[in-house]
């Protein structure tokens, strides 16, 4: 497990050819680890037909609305469940 509660992370900015559970609107965005959900078979590999997809740590990541939509965003947070390989540490 790479990240701890409260860590700041940036989601990767990539557009994979196949299935991914990283929504486009949350790519390249800065958020904070809000909860460690557990280890689950990695969805993107499973979708590609790897039935024995290696488990990966899944995190709930919380984003401030303005870090997703810009300064005119509403006072809201958006949280999403994201796999570890979608995230990079932010120092």
């Amino acid at each position, binding site marked *: 497990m790479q990240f701890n509660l409260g860590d700041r992370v940036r989601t990767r900015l990539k557009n994979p050819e196949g299935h991914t559970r990283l*929504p486009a609107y949350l790519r390249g965005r800065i958020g904070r680890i809000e909860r460690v959900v557990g280890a689950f078979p990695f969805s993107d590999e499973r979708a590609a037909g790897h039935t024995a997809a290696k488990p990966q740590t899944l995190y709930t990541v919380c984003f401030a609305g303005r870090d997703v939509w810009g300064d005119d965003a509403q006072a809201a947070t958006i949280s999403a469940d*994201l796999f570890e390989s979608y995230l990079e540490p932010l120092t």
Partner: protein
Amino acid sequence: MTTHAHDHERSAEVSNRVKRLVAELERRDVLEESALDAVVESFLLNATPANGKRAVARAWSDAGFKERLLDDASAAVAEIGVDMSHWAPVKLRAVENTARRHNLIVCTLCSCYPIALLGPSPVWYKSEAYRSRAVRDPRGVLAEFGVKLAPDVDIAVWDSTAETRYIVLPARPPETENLSEDELAALVTRNGMIGTALA
């Protein structure tokens, strides 16, 4: 073509694909259709919003249960006979509405939803309009559902992108101190547990 006709066409296309897939899996002895029916039936028979309503009413009347529900919702709902294990390893999480925070559930990628507690999801929950707007304009979406929040109430949107299924624990309505758990359950709505209503 109208959107409605388009939806029908798409739905027919999907069910044809499912039929072909099931037929192929049967042909290769991977599964029997009767086994598949049994799984789907046992899942849907027990999947009803009555489960969610009971969980909320119990949380409103039992502080210990509420604490367990917010801490580990899958384990807490097992206490009232709801099995979250199904065939997929999902984790249930309850998020609490307070005087300062209102929660809203969405799945922007598809239509992930705690069916075991809320029953099959409403059509609007699966619509592209709801899925795209809930994260961009939650206050506007809530207003269209008739939920007017004070400006100092923050909104927390939960995008069910992977294995967590979210359910909102609405705030207990005022002047309900004398109600039984069953009477409280009758006040809870499916929309309240998605966040598009207050209770």
